[in-house]
Each structure stands twice: as C-alpha cells, then as structure tokens.
C-alpha cells in the first residue's frame, strides 16, 4: 500500500507498464519460450453465487478433451492458504462461506469457449440461514488511567458520537492475468503481485513443488486498494495446478473487487469547561467478512489511529472483530488506520465546538506529545508542524470562514433551494505511518547486505523486489552516503531472475528500506579506508522500537463544501493541503499521488466535486531533512474523510457521520431540522 507512490511512475511520467521496456526482457523472453499463444490454456474461476450454504451437486456439461477442470480434489497439498497466522480456503468443495468464493476453475484453448462453457456448469446449493455464521472474537483492548474515577469528577462535559464506515468496494472489472508454465522441473509464474514471497509459499504448499523450483516473474500493476495482495496468490496456485494437470502452459484471467471492512465506532470524550480533554472511551466493531485476516495487526493500526492527540488522564479503547457471510475484507489501502484517525480528528473537532472554541485555536492550545500517543505513534517534527498549520489556516482563511458558517449553522432558511447557505468547512491534522507495526510477528524482517568491492563497485543483495522507482531511490541513497556513482551500484535482480522473491510485503521498501540502507552504509563507512576491500555488511530487520509506529510526516487539510439543497449532495469546492515530510525524491509523483488520493476518497465517500474550474486543490509540500519520510497516503485519506465529515456536519447543523454519505441522510437531517 505504501510502495504505490513511487513504483508506477517512470522518468517519462508515463505509467511504467505502458512505458517502453516496462516488462523486463526476461519476462518477454520467457513468455515467448514457454507461453506460446497456440498451446496456452485459458482459464477462469467459477465462484459461488450464494452467500452461505452447502454445495449439493456440481453438474458439468460434456467437456471433451479440449477442456480441463480444477476442483478441490485436484489439490495436491493443502487446500488452503496461509496468510500471516490465519488460513483461508482455496477451492471449496462443500461449505460456502461468502458470495464469490472460488469453487472450481475451467480451462480451455480459447477463452471465449471457456466462458461459454462455464455458463453451462450448474451448481446447486442447500442454503443455510442468513446470519448463522456471525461470530465475534475477544476484543483487543488498550487502556491507561482509571476511567471510572476520572469521569466521575464534577463539572466535566462530554461528547458522544458514533461513526459508521460502511463496506466499500473497488470496481471489479480490472482483469488480472496470471500465467504459469513448466520448464524442466521449474515452475515459472508471471503475475502481478504485491507479495511475491506469499505467492511462492502458497503455490509450493498447494502443489507440493519445492520453493526453490518456483520462479515468480512479477509484472507491473497498479493497486490503489491493495488489490494485488492475496487474490493473485490464489489464482497463481490454481494456474499452477492446471499447468501440472494439463501439462500445458496456462493463463488464468479474473476480475475481483476488494472491500473496505465495515466499521462502527462509538466514542465518548470527557473534557473540562475550558475544553481540555481528560478522558476518552472508544468502542469499535469491525466486520471483516467471512474470513478475518490480519486482525491483530489491524487492531494495532486502528489503535494508532485512535490515539488521542493530547495528554489525557484516562483512555480506553476496545476493538472487536466479527465475521459474517460477506466477502473477506481486510486491506483497503491501509488496515483501518485512515478511518480510525478520521474519527479522532472529527471527535476532537466536536470537543472544540462544544467548548465554544475555534478548532484551530483549540488544537494550538492542546495538541502535543503524550505518553499514550507516543506508545502508539512516535511523531517527529512537532515545532515544524505548528508552523505548517498556521500557514495552512492563513492560506485557507479558515478562521473567518469557520466563524461565518458557524453563525449560519443553526439557521433553517439556509436550506432554501433559492438561497443555499448550507456551507461548512473542516480542518484536520494528523501524522502518516508506513508499514506494519513493530509488534507484528508474522512478517519476516527484511534483510539488506551491502558489499563494497575494489574500484568503488557496490553490490546490494536484498530479497526484496528491486526493479523500478524504489531501486532508483535506494541507489541514490547509497550514492550519496558512500560518494559512489549510481552506475557502479548493482542489485543482483537488475540482470537476473529472482528465484527467491523475498519476505517483505507492502511498505518496507518505502518506509523502512531506505533507513536500513542508510544504516548499512554507515556500517560500511566506519570500516572503509581502515579494513581491506571487499567490505561486506548486512542489516537484518528493523531495530525494535518502543512505539508501535513511528511517523515523520504530517498532513494538514482544510476542506470547504456546500450542500446542494436541490439534489441533496455535498458539493466540495475548495481544498487546501499542507504536507510536511522528510526527503521527497520525486515531487511531481508525490503531488499527483496526493491529489489522486483526495479525489478518489471524496468520490468514493459520496462527495460531488464542483465542476469545471470551480474546484481547487491548493497543495503545499514541505520537505525537511534527509530522512525518508513515512507514507502520507493513509494520512491524506484520513484527513479527507475527517474534513469532509466535519464540513458536512457544519453545513447541515449536525449530522450522523456515515460514510459514504447518501442523499437520504442529508434529506433526513434537513427534514428533522425543519420539524
């Protein structure tokens, strides 16, 4: 999720998979060698059409020798994949847990005839009662201080709000193509994947081919919502089984959506008369669908998002995960950090409002480091952040607009279709994080080895995927650290296929890999000109820290909208964004990514953007220091959600935060106010 920023934009600014030479030469060569179009088997996955039930019968049509099926009985190893510490089934032969669960795959020499034949397959189900499958696990709890004692103090005020983030899905019509072919005893798989290590392990577990005999060739992809994380492994395993059964190279095509888990948050914050918060109580429920994955890590990311931004006397947060008969939902650009941080910002915005203070003035007074916050996210650059915020508030004229819209807040006449003054403005501020938490035990740490040879030649050996923009950034870091030309720095995978695809997933390359490279360069520098060459140093994993996450980036955002009182739609007019981060390698790519994230998040959550040139996104980037900043994508997403709900609340004079926002909710709010 965090590597997206740099990966897809090559120097000519064209997406890498459309650029000349985007597909590495060895993949082109291999595709020609092993995957001749004339002999390739084309396949599709046949999925369940019911939410929950038991498969009664599968009636196959007359298939003949031109077709091949892969069913649960064809699985040579385990009929399930391991994802971190959890398992999910590969092909179901009996129990159906969710709609769209893979049941079998059909392969043939022509994709059209395969699709036509697939329509003739008749699967009958015995339906089970809906809601039977709902299960709840033990909640994850974090607390500090004595909540009961603190909240019993006299003269305390409190704000209780609920936040609903309903299930969202990304479109399912992007075709994922995965090829598999055998060369001697080696299985070659050409696939787009964010997690090569997982794909190789899964294929090995399911086909019983040793890992060393599986070569993954990664093709470029674009996965804004982590679409290429787990499902490509499922498809690769099915393709590998078909390749072994049919003894032909195969290509499997599939399109599938990814879902944001549904979240319900109930949050109560107690504060004193002057607005100083003293206690915060959070109860969150997350529905991850039929197969909960990464629940522990998700709870860590949500804890980080829920972390109160100021010192408190008492804090309690309980996160409950539940499963249902809906499709699995886990990653959606992040693991819940964005939504959790959005609730924190919205909640403290309400506290400021209840204390009759301007949110900016309130934040300036109370925001600061605390033990509770530091244990979850260690943030750097507090003084610079305050300057950034002051500049943002001045640029957007937030104080004046906020005061004006606040005066109009409780007016009923503002909803007139003729003179619409239903306007609102929101201001939010939050840190960005990258990668998994330091508590995450299920992901093997990433290793980097650097070898300095005579003639200032450097070889970097890492099991991480090293093609593309990430490798360019790493080369730049090494070049600056050791004073060596970039041409003399070589990653083994630059010229060769990777047999071992590496253990890292997601963020390590953008957030942690540069830091590891800096550390290994420091080690080499200490021995350089003292010890004889070659010098070999390695860094295994990331140093253990006291905080779950560390952040070196801040994102501040102001969003102004009006409510269209005829169509009952929130119309976003102007957005001001300030980003403070570490070193930026490609400013244009950074800007584009931030703009894309804002626009996509708003549209996904029910906003309508002002047409033509009426919408402006004023973006200021401040790069500070030489460290490589943590990802800002999730923070930008979160700030967009928070400012959108705050502005909507002000425009409507109080609204239940339910995202995506719908016209019915706006209409009901207006009607309620009229009554």
């Amino acid at each position: 999720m965090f590597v997206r920023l740099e990966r897809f934009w090559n120097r000519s600014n064209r997406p890498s998979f459309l650029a000349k030479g985007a597909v590495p030469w060895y993949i082109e060569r291999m595709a020609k060698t092993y995957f001749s179009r004339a002999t390739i088997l084309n396949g599709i996955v046949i999925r369940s059409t019911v939410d929950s039930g038991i498969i009664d019968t599968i009636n196959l049509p007359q298939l003949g020798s031109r077709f091949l099926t892969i069913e649960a009985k064809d699985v040579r190893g385990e009929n399930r994949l391991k994802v971190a510490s959890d398992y999910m089934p590969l092909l179901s032969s009996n129990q159906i847990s969710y709609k769209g669960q893979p049941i079998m795959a059909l392969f043939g020499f022509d994709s059209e005839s395969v699709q036509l034949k697939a329509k003739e397959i008749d699967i009958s189900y015995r339906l089970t009662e809906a809601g039977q499958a709902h299960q709840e696990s033990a909640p994850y709890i974090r607390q500090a201080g004595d909540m009961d004692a603190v909240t019993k103090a006299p003269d305390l005020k409190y704000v209780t709000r609920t936040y609903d983030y309903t299930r969202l899905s990304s479109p399912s019509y992007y075709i994922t193509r995965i090829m598999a072919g055998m060369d001697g005893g080696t299985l070659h798989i050409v696939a787009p994947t964010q997690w090569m290590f997982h794909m190789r392990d899964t294929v090995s577990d399911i086909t019983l081919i040793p890992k060393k005999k599986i070569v993954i060739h990664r093709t470029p992809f674009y996965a804004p919502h982590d679409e290429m994380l787990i499902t490509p492994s499922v498809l690769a395993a099915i393709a590998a089984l078909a390749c072994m059964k049919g003894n032909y190279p195969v290509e499997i095509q599939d399109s599938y959506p990814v879902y944001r888990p549904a979240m319900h948050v109930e949050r109560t914050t107690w504060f004193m008369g002057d607005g100083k918060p003293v206690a915060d109580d959070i109860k969150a429920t997350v529905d991850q669908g039929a197969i909960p994955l990464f629940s522990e890590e998700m709870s860590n990311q949500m804890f980080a998002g829920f972390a109160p931004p100021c010192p408190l006397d008492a804090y309690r947060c309980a996160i409950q995960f539940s499963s249902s008969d809906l499709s699995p939902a886990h990653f959606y650009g992040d693991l819940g950090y964005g939504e959790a941080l959005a609730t924190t910002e919205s909640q403290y915005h309400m506290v400021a409002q209840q204390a009759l203070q301007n949110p900016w003035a309130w934040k300036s007074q109370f925001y600061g480091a605390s033990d509770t916050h530091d244990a979850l996210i260690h943030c750097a650059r507090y003084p610079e952040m305050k300057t950034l915020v002051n500049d943002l508030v001045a640029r957007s004229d937030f104080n004046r607009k906020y005061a004006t819209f606040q005066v109009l807040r409780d007016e009923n006449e503002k909803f007139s279709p003729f003179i619409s003054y239903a306007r609102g403005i929101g201001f939010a501020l939050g840190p960005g994080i990258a990668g998994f938490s330091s508590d995450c035990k299920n992901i093997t740490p990433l290793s980097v080895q650097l070898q300095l040879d005579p003639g200032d030649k450097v070889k970097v050996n890492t099991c991480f995927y090293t093609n593309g923009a990430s490798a360019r950034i790493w080369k730049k870091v090494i070049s600056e650290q050791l004073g060596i030309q970039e041409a003399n720095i070589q990653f083994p995978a630059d010229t060769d296929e990777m047999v071992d695809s590496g253990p890292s997933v997601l963020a390590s390359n953008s957030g942690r890999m540069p830091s590891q490279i800096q550390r290994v360069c420091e080690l080499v520098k200490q021995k350089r000109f003292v010890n004889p060459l070659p010098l070999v140093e390695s860094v295994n994993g990331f140093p253990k820290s006291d905080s779950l996450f560390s952040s070196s980036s801040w994102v501040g955002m102001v969003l102004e909208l009006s409510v269209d009182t005829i169509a009952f739609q929130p119309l976003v007019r102007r957005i001001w964004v300030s980003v403070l981060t570490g070193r930026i390698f490609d400013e244009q790519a950074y800007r584009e990514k931030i703009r894309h994230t804002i626009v996509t998040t708003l549209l996904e959550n029910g906003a309508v953007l002002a047409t033509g040139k009426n919408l402006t996104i004023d973006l200021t980037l401040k790069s500070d220091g030489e460290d490589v900043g943590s990802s800002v994508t999730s923070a930008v997403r979160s700030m967009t959600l928070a400012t959108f709900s705050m502005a909507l609340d002000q425009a409507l004079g109080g609204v239940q935060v339910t995202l995506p926002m719908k016209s019915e909710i706006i209409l009901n709010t207006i009607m309620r106010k009229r009554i």
Partner: protein
Amino acid sequence: MNLDCIIDGKGLSLSVNSNKPLLLILTEDVGCRSLNSNCHGSRCGNCLVLVNDIVVLSCLVPAFRLKDANIQTFDGFSKTRQCRDIERAYQVTGNMPCPNCYASKTMLIESILQNLTGEHHAGKEISMPGRLRPQIVGETTPLDEEAVAKELSLNTCQCMDTGELLQIVEIALSYRRRKNVRRA
C-alpha cells in the same frame, strides 16, 4: 470470420468469431498491453480506442463491424508526436491519470483534440456501437467546457476531477494548434 483491418498502422488479417468484442481481439489476438479492463459494457470506460478516428468502447464493438477499419490503440498512439502534446499537458498541469485509466483518458483527449482542431475527415459516418453520445464536432473557440466534460465522462475512473481534465485539454489544445500552425 476473416477480419482484415489496420491496427496501429499495420494491416492484419485475423480469424475470429464474428461477435468477438474488439477488446478481446486486441488483448488476446493482437497482444495489446494498454487495455486492462473488461466490464462487458459501458461501465468503466477503460477500454477506449480510436476506430476510424472515433473514440469507442472496444468491449462493445463486435468483430463484424470492423471490416477494413483503422484501429488505433494507445500502444501505437504512444509512439506518435501527437501523444507528446497530451503528455506535455500532463506535465505542465502536474496532474496525470492513474495507471489504470492512463491509456483510455489519453485516447479520449486525443479524440477531443482531433475534433476541436478539425482533424477529422468531414462527412465521416460517426454511428458506431460503443459510442454513448454524439461527439463534439467542429472547431470551437473558446472551449465548450460542458460538451468536453460530457465527452470526458466516457471514462468513469475517479482518479481526476473534471476541472483538472479540462485544464489538460485546454493546454494540449494550445500545443496542438501551435503545431498545426507551424506545419501550415
């Protein structure tokens, strides 16, 4: 059926089913890499190509409508000088479509530019399956933003807002007109 057509400037003779959509012909038979979507209908707009200089949703155009057609995909178009105008506009505005819709949005903008600069051959039949709405015809100065925005909505990817796209079209148009003046 045997299909004779020109794809990216190359004359090809293909043996395909008569109802096979152009999208599948391009991805499976020709090996086109820039198309990565198949919504089986006009939902995503990520399969846009130019057929006889008209932008169409290739998943809706069957093979039997393509006899002797001149088809241009992003794979071929990206190598032309015209593509450079649009890419320069992306760079100048600092906004760019996401990788999923980059090819389609670029082809769509090219079609708009061709219409606005009058590069289309006059009197050409513009009725094609896969066309959802009439095209902007003729040279319009200043830019008819409403018509252009309507045309741009053929692609439904939400990565950019209309304002950004209009700005790109405007800048690319100025480059294209300047280039045409120099040529004249």
